């Protein structure tokens, strides 16, 4: 039986479909009228091969110039990739627009929400789109910008059981060629549950993904590359956050409405897509974790190994598989490049370059500790038993940084028998009936 919510959603979907049809037919009408004219302004036909020709009418000339400049070896390769963007809000919509303009092969958009006027402080969506589903509105705009991109949209919440299964099916079969997996999933969601859902799917499938986030107070954000088995998954450690350097006591928490800025969201979308391009087109260094602290204009980076005792069984399986692959891989001979030391003949002022990292800092950062550099911290700490990969004291909290919150553990860790639910002979049906009768 469909619930009221589902029916409402369905009505909205149909309404959006109708708007789409109307727009299409009016477009066709105009086309019919102007067929003898050259090209309807604002709409271009599909381009089958990316050209590097430098003419005003080539939308790819500036991108293809990356090859001539020696930055990217094979820019056209971008058309062979399919990327799924989960969450088409402040970060996700801008991310999708950047990828569209870059000429990505296929975009899969997932979001259950609709556009509201309250979203207008962020980029991308426009007031006349209020009421439309975010994925539909985004598809309209993006298709207009670049008709070469293939779009697939899903207007639902990925965390509920049915949608979760559908989401998993689409990321494993919705690649550029139907039946192949997507190349990358980008998490642009605003809640823990959806991130854990994506993490679960990716650990099970061995799917590479990037996580992104902007803090509730809108002044910090981060991106993180997760390669199952190779880098820490989202469940390996408590969520990492960029320390805001704001005294928690002065932080106002009236109401639950999160603050947001188009600037921070644009910056985070920018560093996210930059990392995507570097990862897909193989140039530069791909960041494993890059934070952004808007208050100090500070960008901490780090990378984190997976937790061998991660709660997620599929993460542990991926780690084993990764280690096996690594062991089987023929050892590459390391080419040691000796950099010639530049010694200036004259140094009257006694100027010397000093390493930013001291010996002590280097030693302290090795070992099993999640290597959190200054400026990155965890959202909360876990009880010692959950953090078996390091003792609580070594889960270091750099001086001056505060943990966001540190909830108490109410469950005694060596949970004594008396506190646990007792075995019962009753079947599920009997228990359900008993609950009804109370």
């Amino acid at each position, binding site marked *: 039986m469909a619930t009221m919510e589902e029916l409402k959603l369905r009505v909205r979907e149909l309404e959006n479909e109708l708007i789409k049809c109307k727009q299409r037919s009016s477009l066709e009408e105009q086309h019919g009228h102007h067929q003898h004219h050259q090209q309807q302004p604002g709409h271009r036909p599909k381009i089958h091969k990316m050209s590097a020709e430098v003419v005003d009418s080539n939308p790819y000339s500036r991108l293809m110039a990356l090859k001539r400049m020696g930055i990217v070896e094979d820019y056209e390769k971008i058309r062979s990739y399919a990327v799924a963007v989960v969450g088409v809000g402040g970060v996700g919509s801008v991310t999708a627009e950047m990828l569209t303009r870059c000429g990505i092969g296929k975009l899969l958009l997932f979001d259950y929400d609709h556009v509201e006027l309250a979203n207008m402080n962020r980029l991308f969506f426009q007031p006349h789109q209020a009421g439309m589903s975010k994925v539909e509105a985004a598809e309209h705009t993006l298709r207009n910008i670049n008709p070469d991109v293939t779009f697939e949209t899903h207007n639902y919440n990925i965390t509920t059981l049915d949608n979760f*299964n559908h989401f998993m099916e689409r990321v494993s079969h919705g690649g550029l060629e139907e039946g192949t997996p997507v190349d990358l999933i980008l998490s642009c969601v605003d809640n823990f549950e959806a991130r854990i859902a994506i993490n679960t799917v990716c650990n099970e499938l061995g799917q590479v993904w990037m996580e992104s986030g902007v803090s509730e107070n809108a002044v910090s954000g981060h991106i993180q590359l997760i390669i199952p088995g190779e880098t820490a998954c989202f469940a390996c450690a408590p969520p990492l956050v960029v320390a805001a350097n704001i005294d928690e006591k002065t932080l106002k928490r009236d109401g639950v409405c999160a603050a947001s800025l188009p600037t921070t969201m644009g910056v985070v979308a920018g560093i996210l897509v930059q990392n995507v391009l570097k990862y897909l087109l193989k140039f530069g260094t791909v960041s494993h974790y890059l934070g952004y602290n808007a208050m100090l204009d500070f960008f901490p980076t780090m990378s984190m190994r997976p937790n061998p005792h991660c709660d997620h069984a599929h993460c542990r399986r991926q780690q084993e598989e990764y280690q096996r692959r690594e062991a089987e891989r023929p050892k590459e001979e390391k080419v040691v490049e000796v950099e010639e030391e530049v010694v200036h003949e004259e140094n009257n002022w006694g100027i010397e370059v000093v390493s930013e990292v001291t010996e002590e800092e280097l030693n302290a950062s090795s070992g099993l500790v999640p290597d959190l550099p200054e400026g990155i911290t965890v959202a909360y700490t876990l009880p010692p038993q959950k953090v078996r990969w390091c003792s609580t004291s070594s889960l270091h909290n750099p001086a001056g940084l505060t943990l966001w919150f540190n909830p108490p553990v109410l469950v005694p860790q060596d949970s004594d028998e008396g506190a646990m639910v007792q075995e019962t002979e009753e079947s599920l049906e009997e228990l359900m009936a*008993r609950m009804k009768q109370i």
Partner: protein
Amino acid sequence: MADEATRRAVSAIPLLRTDGGPRDRELWVQRLREEYVALIRYVEANKAADTDWFRLESDPGGTRWTGTCWYVHELLRYEFSVQLELPATYPATAPDVAVPELEGKTAKMYRGGRVCLTDHFKPLWARNAPRFGLAHLMALGLGPWLAVEVPDLVARGLLTHRENPQTHRDPPSAGAP
């Protein structure tokens, strides 16, 4: 956060043994039985202590739950229907609890009437999963939320008592049918 009352409430609810969610067929049946045992224990304890405040039951698959909850404020009982749908990643993540009829009346709520558990409950769940179950969600998530929100909504005139629609401050008129 974990005051004496909270600790007492938690100690009355049995902890769950099985780490299984709706996607784990057999484990889920076991987990669902434990959910019911814990809920029944908690409701019975509430009744015994004269603090009975909710009823909850699920569809056969155990993923959709519906029921009622009530809160007594200035001797008047305010009753609401409750809905919750378990996420595919339960019990790694806590479900959202919705009180749809209060949607739009308080800022401490997300779309669909889902009450905001972000600050007071979600971190607690993260630290205690998978031992916590739906009974804990009610006791430590929805319970404290109602205790803060209902008196506030009544004070702001956004919530009026059903049998006494004028205003809760009016004395009940004597001899009314």
